[in-house]
């Protein structure tokens, strides 16, 4: 049976490897925030339409992940954190990742247009374009502000979820976008403070490398200060309420305190306790975002019982 000889390499790509191309962990954040955006909107959608819309938004996010892995395969090979990804590991060829990404992009956009509305579909298409072209191809390797602007791609899903239900944009959806957008830099830079040697090797400009670590510590505080009014302001809109505001106040105090401590510390102190504070703030930032959107969901649930909201 020598006619199958070309397919006898040991590194056969399994179904899971194609799933890994779609960055399932990023996808879970997309699903969660898009779902909240959809559920807190003042207009309801039939459950099947909602499920389908979330699925296609997630698929669009996954498609942009595959395109990102196709384009970044060269730096993924160098960085320890990403060496196990399907392309650097030799399981999936770059061409396969490219075609999977392109097909899924088109498919998810068209299907979202059919399931929900054209505005939401156009928004999803723009998000994929933004993440793949603006962030991955253009900004990531060029400017240390890559995280700031790239964060916008991760911030669009709740706006798309909102657009699925309402067919448009509003102050509430813009503030949900703002919350993730301004949250991303302090979240990511806290991570960069305790593991940046990887980005050094790959020559990706990271703020910690280009502007130094003290500057990064200052920027974490600056962005956290900008984040507080956005997070609290969201609580004063129609989707907020006392529960959200209480949760937000506690989280913002904790996050601010963490950012302040990071700013006050120098490298010697951080190295002495193996970046304990930075790691703690990074974990806190994950909880911060999760609980903010969880609180929005809780308010929407309470409103159903005529208890939540203002």
């Amino acid at each position, binding site marked *: 049976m020598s006619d*199958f000889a070309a397919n006898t390499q040991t590194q*056969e*790509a*399994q*179904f*899971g490897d194609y799933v890994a191309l779609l960055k399932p962990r990023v996808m879970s954040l997309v699903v969660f925030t898009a779902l909240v955006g959809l559920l807190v909107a003042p207009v309801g959608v039939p459950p*099947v*339409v909602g*499920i389908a819309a979330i699925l296609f938004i997630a698929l669009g996010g996954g498609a942009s992940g595959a395109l990102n892995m196709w384009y970044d395969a060269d730096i993924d090979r160098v960085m320890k954190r990403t060496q196990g990804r399907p392309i650097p590991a030799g399981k999936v060829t770059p061409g396969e990742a490219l075609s999977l990404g392109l097909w899924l992009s088109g498919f998810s956009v068209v299907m979202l247009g*059919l399931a929900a509305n054209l505005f939401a579909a156009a928004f999803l298409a723009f998000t994929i374009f933004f993440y793949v072209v603006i962030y991955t191809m253009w900004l990531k390797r060029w400017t240390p502000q890559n995280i700031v602007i790239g964060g916008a791609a991760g911030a669009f899903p709740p706006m798309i979820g909102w657009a699925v239900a309402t067919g448009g944009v509003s102050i509430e959806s813009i503030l949900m976008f703002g919350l993730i957008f301004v949250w991303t830099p302090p979240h990511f830079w806290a991570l960069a403070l305790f593991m940046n040697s990887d980005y050094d090797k790959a020559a990706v400009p990271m703020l910690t490398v280009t502007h130094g670590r003290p500057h990064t510590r200052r920027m974490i505080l600056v962005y956290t200060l900008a984040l507080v009014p956005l997070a609290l302001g969201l609580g004063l809109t129609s989707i907020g309420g006392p529960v959200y505001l209480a949760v937000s106040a506690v989280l913002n105090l904790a996050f601010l305190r963490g950012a302040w401590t990071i700013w006050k510390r120098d490298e010697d102190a951080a190295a002495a306790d193996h970046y304990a504070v930075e790691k703690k703030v990074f974990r806190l930032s994950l909880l911060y975002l999760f609980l903010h959107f969880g609180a929005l969901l809780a308010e929407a649930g309470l409103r159903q019982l005529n208890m939540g909201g203002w």
Partner: protein
Amino acid sequence: MPITETHEIHHRRLGRNLGVALCLAGFVGLSFFLTISKLRNGGTIEGFDYVPQPEFTVGEGSE
């Protein structure tokens, strides 16, 4: 000619093939329920059968 022999690749690719099959089946199911849901919620449908359709008939004297 029917495939009478199975090759080792059929076993090796079983997971992939099953995965693709499940995805396709899921998509078929989703499309079906999406259609039902859209129709139930006021989607329009025209049954081109023997039921008279007023919008296609020209009113008397409206030449």
